């Protein structure tokens, strides 16, 4: 039995997950159940970061993974971001890198610049 804190929303429900049966208790909403199962089978995280940008009002623009990626791939994803250099203007949702690291996760812009 694993005890977890759900990170799906700021409530931070205290979950209990049976690692064998994958039964989840303690969640206040369905997303908590999904998180509980995922965390014990294949933990994933949304990664938020920045990339270089030219011609904008600042040298960096914020980006994120449009879906959570496997925890083990976070630092590889960060390395990929180092090679990116965008040119202003960019819009929220613009795809910076598609299907990173053999996943269907894209890096998208999160700030209009």
């Amino acid at each position, binding site marked *: 039995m694993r005890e977890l804190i759900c*990170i799906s*929303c*700021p409530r931070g429900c205290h979950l209990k997950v049976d690692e064998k049966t994958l039964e989840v208790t303690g969640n206040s909403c369905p997303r908590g159940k999904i998180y509980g199962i995922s965390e014990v089978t294949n933990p994933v995280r949304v990664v938020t*970061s920045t990339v270089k940008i030219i011609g904008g009002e600042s*040298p960096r623009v914020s980006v*994120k993974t449009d879906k959570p990626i496997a*925890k083990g791939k976070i*630092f590889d994803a960060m390395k990929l971001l180092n090679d990116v250099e965008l040119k202003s203007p960019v819009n929220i949702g613009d795809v910076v890198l598609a299907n990173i690291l053999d996943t269907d996760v894209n890096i998208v812009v999160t700030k*209009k610049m």
Partner: protein
Amino acid sequence: MIEHELVIIGGGPAGLSAAYGAYENGVRDILIIERDARLGGILNQCIHNGFGLHKFKEELTGPEYAQRYIDLVNQTNVKIKSDTMVLDLSKDKVLHCISAKDGYETIKAKAIILAMGCRERTRGAITIPGDRCAGIFTAGAAQKYCNIDGYLVGKKVVILGSGDIGLIMARRMVLEGATVAADVELCPYSNGLNRNVVQCLNDFDIPLYLSHTVTDIVADENDGRVQKVIISEVDENKKPIPGTEREIECDTLLLSVGLIPENELSQNAEIEIDPRTKGPIVYDNLETSVEGIFACGNVLQVHDLVDFVSMEAERAGKNVSEYLKNGEVNSTLIKVENKEQVGYTVPQYIRKDSTDEDAVQISFRVRSPMKNKRIVVEANGSELASFPRLNLAPAEMENIKISRDKLKDVDVIDISIKEMQK
């Protein structure tokens, strides 16, 4: 002199939401004055997600949340003066502001909404002894250097304070290649959201030292930069326990030790400030002690979720439109008092004769974490309302609503935390 019906000081989430709320309720001459070159306030550097779950039912990053309101405001005729700083505000609602573009200007407003946000507590406020070298930053300043300007302020970091800003910066620094040796927290519990302890500390095996504080900062031999910090355990009075000192080598100390509402302009306008919140004392319609000046967002009370900032600010905008239509409400007042375990309340006063039909919203924070309690609203010894809560924590602002007909015959209401009833 330039004149506007409504001037909003601050173009962050509070100011934007207030403008939207005012416009939606019929105000058509609105000016937002924003000191930065772009709107969005502190959200521009809050590149992490967790915003918007209540307001938009989506998990957004700070800049995305800001853009939602910027888009809403752009669909209105709200005017924006950006890169403009309000230098002075007077009781009769005259502002002086300057900008590179328009120079020094005087603006008169019929109503004003204060939305200036807050600033970070400094090292001096908690009197950390030691050297005053480079490498000591507030977490927010380090966040700006990192997320806006693209600089890593240090490579081996210790963080003081486990509020959300400290937790978020722990993760941010690690993702950019630094190591975070420890997060040191004075209280016996973390002051940030549990989700952030998980995804910012636990995910990266960063130790969290509860009931500890930094008791010395030691510079390198050039006296130039931090070389190590000394942390000590503290007792129940938060005083360092001699003999518990340990050294942590680092080149950077980030301070996440609290936020203070930015009320200099409010004080210039002789607005009464509540020493508990450090924000203006307000009535239930969010109007301050000066007629026609309203306050919302972090300048009023430090919030933990921007969604609640927007809700509060939209209410302020709506209430301003009422004020502009119907003028000042003269009314007897109900005093709202905070009792056991409640640190403060906003509002501090409720107008009995308000024509607002909506329930009165009261926000507050508790003084320490508690489980299985009730929030109780009482007057003259009898309970007017009771709200059960499984978990209460100082890090999480509480909001309750109480209908106005329950308040018809009272002069003072107490908010307190009591045991669950059997």
